[in-house]
C-alpha cells in the first residue's frame, strides 16, 4: 500500500475505534459521517459553499503568489528593500489569525473580503521569503558565466533566475496553498455568510454534529485533492522539466 493511503487508513481505523467508545454527539462513526456527507452533497447546499470557499482560497493563493514573487524579486534587485521589509514581515507573521480577521471585518465588512485578506496575510510571507531566499541561492557560477558571456538581462531572467525560482517556489506554493486553505476556512466561519467555514460553524451552533463532521471530512478531502491533483502534478512537471536527473 502506498504510504499516503496507509496513513489515511490508519487514521480512519483510529477514528472508528474511538467512535465506538464515545457518544455520537461527541464523535460519530466514520460510516455515519460518510453517509451524512453523501446526503449533504446530494442536497446541493455543500456544493455552493464549496464553490465559494474554492474561489476565496484560490484568490488568496494567487494573490499571495503574485505579491510574494513581486516583492521577492524587488528584494533580490534592491537588498535595502529586504531590510526595510523585514520588520513588516515579522509583524505580519507574529499577528495571530484572529487579529487579522477582526481588522479585516473592520475594514471590509462581512463577505468574501475578510477570508481572502486573512488568507493572503498568512500565505504571502511564505512566498515572499521563498522567492527572496531562492534568488540569494542562485548558483554564483552561473552568474559568473552570464557576466563573462555578457548575457542580456532578459536572458539571465528567463534562463537562470526563473527556472531556479520555479524549483524553489513549487515547495513554497504547496505550503502557501495549505495555509491559505486553512486560514480562509477559519475566517469564513466568523466573517462570511457563505463558504465551508461558515457552514461548519453554523452546524456547530445548531448542534448538527454529523453535519460538522461531514463538513470537516469534506474540507480534508478537498485539501488533499488540491495538493495531489493541483500542486503535485505541477511540481512534478516543473521538476521533470528542470532537473533532468
Amino acid at each position: 500500500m502506498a504510504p499516503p493511503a496507509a496513513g489515511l487508513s490508519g487514521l480512519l481505523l483510529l477514528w472508528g475505534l474511538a467512535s465506538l467508545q464515545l457518544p455520537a454527539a461527541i464523535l460519530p462513526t466514520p460510516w455515519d459521517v460518510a453517509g451524512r456527507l453523501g446526503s449533504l452533497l446530494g442536497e446541493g447546499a455543500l456544493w455552493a459553499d464549496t464553490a465559494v470557499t474554492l474561489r476565496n482560497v484560490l484568490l488568496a493563493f494567487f494573490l499571495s503568489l503574485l505579491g510574494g514573487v513581486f516583492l521577492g524579486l524587488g528584494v533580490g534587485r534592491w537588498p535595502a528593500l529586504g531590510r526595510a521589509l523585514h520588520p513588516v514581515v515579522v509583524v505580519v507573521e507574529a499577528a495571530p489569525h484572529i487579529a487579522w480577521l477582526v481588522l479585516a471585518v473592520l475594514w471590509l465588512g462581512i463577505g468574501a473580503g475578510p477570508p481572502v485578506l486573512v488568507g493572503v496575510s498568512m500565505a504571502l510571507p511564505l512566498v515572499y521569503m521563498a522567492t527572496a531566499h531562492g534568488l540569494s541561492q542562485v548558483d554564483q557560477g552561473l552568474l559568473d558565466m552570464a557576466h563573462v558571456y555578457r548575457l542580456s538581462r532578459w536572458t539571465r531572467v528567463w534562463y537562470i533566475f526563473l527556472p531556479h525560482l520555479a524549483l524553489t517556489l513549487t515547495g513554497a506554493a504547496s505550503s502557501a496553498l495549505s495555509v491559505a486553505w486553512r486560514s480562509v476556512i477559519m475566517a469564513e466561519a466568523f466573517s462570511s455568510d457563505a463558504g465551508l467555514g461558515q457552514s461548519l460553524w453554523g452546524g456547530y451552533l445548531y448542534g448538527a454534529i454529523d453535519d460538522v463532521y461531514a463538513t470537516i471530512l469534506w474540507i480534508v478531502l478537498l485539501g488533499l485533492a488540491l495538493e495531489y491533483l493541483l500542486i503535485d502534478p505541477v511540481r512534478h512537471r516543473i521538476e521533470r522539466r528542470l532537473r533532468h536527473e
Partner: protein
Amino acid sequence: MSDLQTEFRCPFEDSPSDAPDLLTLEGVTRIFPGGQGVKGVDLVVRRGEVVGICGASGCGKSTLLRLVAGREHPDEGGIRRDYHRLGMVFQEPNLLPWLTALRNVELVLSRRDRVRALEALHAVGLEGAEAQYPARLSGGMRQRVGIARALAMEPDLLLMDEPFSSLDYFTRTDLLELVRTRVRALDLGVIFVSHDVREVAHLCDRVLVMGRTPGRTLAELRNPASGKQGRRPPGLVARFEERVLEAIRGGHPSAACPASSESCPSLRTPPEETLP
C-alpha cells in the same frame, strides 16, 4: 662581461613578440579582508600565446582571473583590455541544468547560431551528445561542453580557471591535448590558471609563478618547448616543469643559469612591503 654570460641565453626568459597585446595588467592590486588577494601584478597576454598562472592554493590565481573577467575591480593598478570577445572555461562547467548541451552552447552565441554551436560541440568530440542534459553527461563531457561554449563564440582571449581539477587523470590528459590543439588552431590568447605544474608545462608558452598572502609574482618563465609544432618534446616539458616547481618553492628557476638571482630577468621577486 664574461663569454659565458654573453653567449648564454636563458631558455626561461621571456622573448619579445610581434603579436598584438590583448590584455595588459599594470601593478594590479586587490586585497580582501584577511590579506588574501593579489598585489602589484604585471602581466601582458598577446594573441597566440598561452600564459599560465601557477602557484599554491590561496595565491590569488582565481582572483586574478576574476579581475580580468571584470567580476572584481582592482584597488590599485590598471587593466587594459584590447580584445573584443572573452571566453571562459570555469573550474566547474557552469552549465544550465535545464538546457541540453547544444542549447547551453547556443545561449552565448549571438542570434543563437545553431550551426556554429553544433560545430563547436563536434570539434570537442561530442557528436551524438547534443541533445543530452548536463546531468546525463560525465564530468569530462560536461567540461567539453564548457570548452565548446567558450570556443564557439570565437573569443580573442580565453580564460581557463583550473578547468581540469575535478577530472580523473585520463580525462584530464585528453582534454589538455584537445585544448592545446584547439587553441593553436584558433590562434587565441589564453590565460590558464592551474595548481598542476604538469598541465601548465604541457600547455603554456609562458608561466607566471605566484606566491601567496597576498598573491604576488615570484617569477615569470618562458617555456623552452613553446613554439614547437606537434607534440612538445617530453624532455623539454619535464625540464620546464622542474623549473616551475623550483620557482614555486622559492628557488632559482634554473640551476644551469649563470645569472645571479638579482639580475635574472625571469625571476622578479618584489621587495617585501607592509600591507595597507
